[in-house]
């Protein structure tokens, strides 16, 4: 036994003396711990987030983040444009603006939406938001009470699930396949809710180049889903940040182009121009728009003036349609690098979606593997992805991961997929060792031993390494 007299071990037992700068800590480190709103209870530190921090190191190939390739923009031209907005129009661009957003920008937004078949939208129905993320938050605030049911694809955009969780909504997932949301599954979900006496507040869907699944809702299904909305009195939130980023075909007609009463449309300049400017919008029927404007005024007073003017000026003066083509060519090349590498390198039993646009591939691991549990191995191998579990509100998705090809160069993508393949192979090897273990055949577990003495002199040494 060590000599207990060796150290002081007690507070204030040394010569330093108490410092006036030190105030006693609360035992929980947070004196407000018992005051938080119920909606914050899910907000905790997580291992997943911690593991992501290595992504900023250049050694790591990140197939995790969905960061647009903004360096493909004509940065000098955009820079002088923004400079002129301040030097020439500072009185407007540095001032508060309208809660609904700049009228000129709203006009131009209608031009952008026309590319996807929304030709009847009026600028008065558009509310400019701080990214479409704020638009989604506003719509949720306006429609959802705690406990309300929201339908969303399985999987669904993680940022939307965060908004719905903060609103204390109950998210029910609806199955999708390579053609997007399955109408029969949607109908089934609606019937189940009806049978349970639950009213569905809305369906949240990303019809084009889905985040995270990469798939696109087919033309026949678009009509089918709008018909279901009519039949079941369903409101649809159509979130469409990627619609103009198709690689093969012309943009598809939006759901909103097929029905203007049951569909609230969310748009964004984050993927077609710049995510850092945080400009998005909501297109909603007039009565809804009124509530959205009041809600946004309560939240942010008005969207930032300078970035709204920047987007409007960009659309007015820059070849933005050509710029979208530059983006899509770049993303197509990266998509190709991803799919070719996956085909060449992934172990048997791995499957993935084949996107025609957008940023994402949704990969399913061989049977039994868990993308979240595998993540430390991937970090050690210097490759990052997003585990699928984050894209579900109900704990599904462990066998999936999202791969983003939008940001790394093709050679880096190939290297990242190579590393990922090795990680999956190592994990398969591990599973082949442990999956067949039948603990039912183990001998009886001994009763807990008496408390171990300090020196353990009588403990068996043969277990020691």
């Amino acid at each position, binding site marked *: 036994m060590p000599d207990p007299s060796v*150290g002081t*071990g007690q507070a204030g037992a040394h010569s330093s*003396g108490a*410092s006036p700068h030190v105030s006693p800590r609360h035992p929980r480190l947070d004196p407000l711990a018992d005051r938080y709103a119920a909606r914050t209870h899910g907000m*905790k530190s997580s291992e997943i987030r911690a593991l992501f921090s290595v992504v900023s190191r250049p050694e790591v190939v990140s197939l995790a983040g969905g960061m647009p390739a903004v360096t493909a923009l004509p940065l000098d031209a955009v820079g002088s444009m923004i400079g002129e907005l301040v030097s020439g129009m500072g009185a407007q661009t540095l001032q508060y603006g309208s809660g609904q957003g700049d009228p000129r920008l709203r006009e131009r937004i209608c031009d952008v939406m026309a590319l996807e078949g929304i030709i009847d939208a009026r600028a008065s129905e558009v509310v400019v938001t701080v990214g479409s993320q704020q638009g989604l938050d506003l719509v949720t605030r306006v429609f959802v009470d705690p406990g309300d049911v929201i339908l969303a694809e399985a999987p669904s955009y993680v940022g939307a699930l965060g908004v719905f969780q903060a609103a204390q909504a109950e998210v029910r997932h609806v199955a999708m396949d390579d053609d997007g949301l399955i109408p029969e599954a949607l109908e089934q979900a609606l019937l189940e809710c009806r049978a349970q006496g639950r009213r569905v507040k809305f369906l949240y869907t990303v019809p084009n180049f889905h985040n995270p699944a990469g798939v696109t809702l087919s033309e026949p299904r678009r009509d089918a889903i709008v018909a279901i909305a009519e039949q079941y009195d369903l409101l649809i939130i159509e979130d469409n940040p990627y619609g103009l980023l198709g690689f093969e075909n012309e943009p598809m007609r939006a759901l909103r182009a097929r029905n203007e009463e049951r569909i609230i449309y969310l748009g964004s300049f984050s993927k077609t121009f710049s995510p850092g400017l945080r400009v998005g919008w909501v297109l909603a029927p007039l009565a809804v728009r009124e509530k959205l404007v009041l809600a946004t005024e309560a939240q942010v007073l008005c969207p930032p003036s300078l970035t709204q003017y920047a987007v409007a000026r960009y659309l007015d003066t820059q070849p933005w349609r050509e710029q979208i083509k530059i983006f899509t060519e770049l993303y197509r090349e990266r998509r190709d690098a991803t799919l070719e590498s996956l085909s060449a390198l992934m172990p048997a039993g791995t499957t993935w979606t084949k996107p025609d646009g957008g940023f994402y591939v949704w990969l399913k691991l061989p049977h039994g593997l868990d993308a979240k549990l595998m993540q430390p191995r991937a970090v050690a191998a210097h490759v990052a992805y997003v585990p699928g579990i984050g894209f579900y509100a109900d704990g599904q998705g462990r066998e999936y991961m999202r791969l983003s090809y939008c940001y790394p160069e093709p050679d880096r993508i190939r290297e990242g997929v190579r590393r990922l393949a090795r990680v999956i192979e190592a994990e398969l090897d591990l599973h082949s060792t442990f999956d067949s273990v039948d603990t039912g055949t*183990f001998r009886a577990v001994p009763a807990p031993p008496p*408390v171990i003495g*300090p020196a353990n002199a009588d403990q068996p040494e043969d277990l020691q390494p």
Partner: protein
Amino acid sequence: MSEPAAAPMPSSTKNPLRALVLAGGLTFEREVSINSGGQVVEALTRAGVEAELHDADAELLPGLAATPSDAVFIALHGATGEDGALRAVLDLAGVPYVGSPAAACRLAWDKPAAKSVVRSAGVGTPDWVALPHSTFRELGAGAVLDLIVARLGLPLMVKPASGGSSLGVQKVDRVEDLPAAMVSCFAYGDTVMVERFVDGVELALSVIDLGDGPEALPAVEIAPESGVFDYTSRYTPGLTEYHCPARVSDEVAARAAAVALRVHDVLGLAGLSRTDAIVTPDGEVHFLEVNVSPGLTETSMFPMAVEAAGYTLGEVLGRLLTRAAHEGPITQ
């Protein structure tokens, strides 16, 4: 210890000490390390030290050569920062740093090896076995796990043989959960340590040595709301109660302090360390593991112990740095 006898406080008036604080790294604990590093820079700056944050990357050595620091503070967690590798390189470069030398770090980093040394020195530690994946593959995982359960009983703690921040650590109550726990733990490294679960009060025992010899700081008692001190409990303020000094008798506190000092001594540690231990209801203190680069974030236990002892973090870290700078680099 030769000289100086006790490191003086860094002076903010003349020639302030210049410190490079290393944080980040390419490990699972990068985020924790960045948080620690930020706290260290803040504390040192308040204590009058010119502290700068730097990652452990390819720019480190050229940067140190171009603008030498008086000493380096390593706030890296996980491999490289704690396994002795970076310190060995700093030794080669002739750069003084705060804390334990490379060889001691290598020993402390290897949890099973450290437990062996600590047990041989007469300190209690729960029984354990540490095995690589290949052993299970070659001998049959079922047979080996059966032996482990038969010998160590249930519940069991399954943890990576190296690494910190509770990452990968699991308590296994039911035998049928053991294979899956092994699989998820092996994702953190090639060797897993399975340890007999010991129930009791969890203590974090910090030791500092400002030049007068190692001093045990008041124990921090850890009481996670969920019962398990995992990553979420550790880094989400509000989910764990910390009591410092720990709510234990004076006798137990003295015994815990003695264990921390003994561990610090037998593993050859220097400057600062934090030993994690469990106190069983009979008052015995059982060693779990020791950290040569203890967490220094806002929710970490080492800074709590420092404050409870009446120091400020900046004072302690500043004196450790001063001492490292005065003693100069480690030469072999």
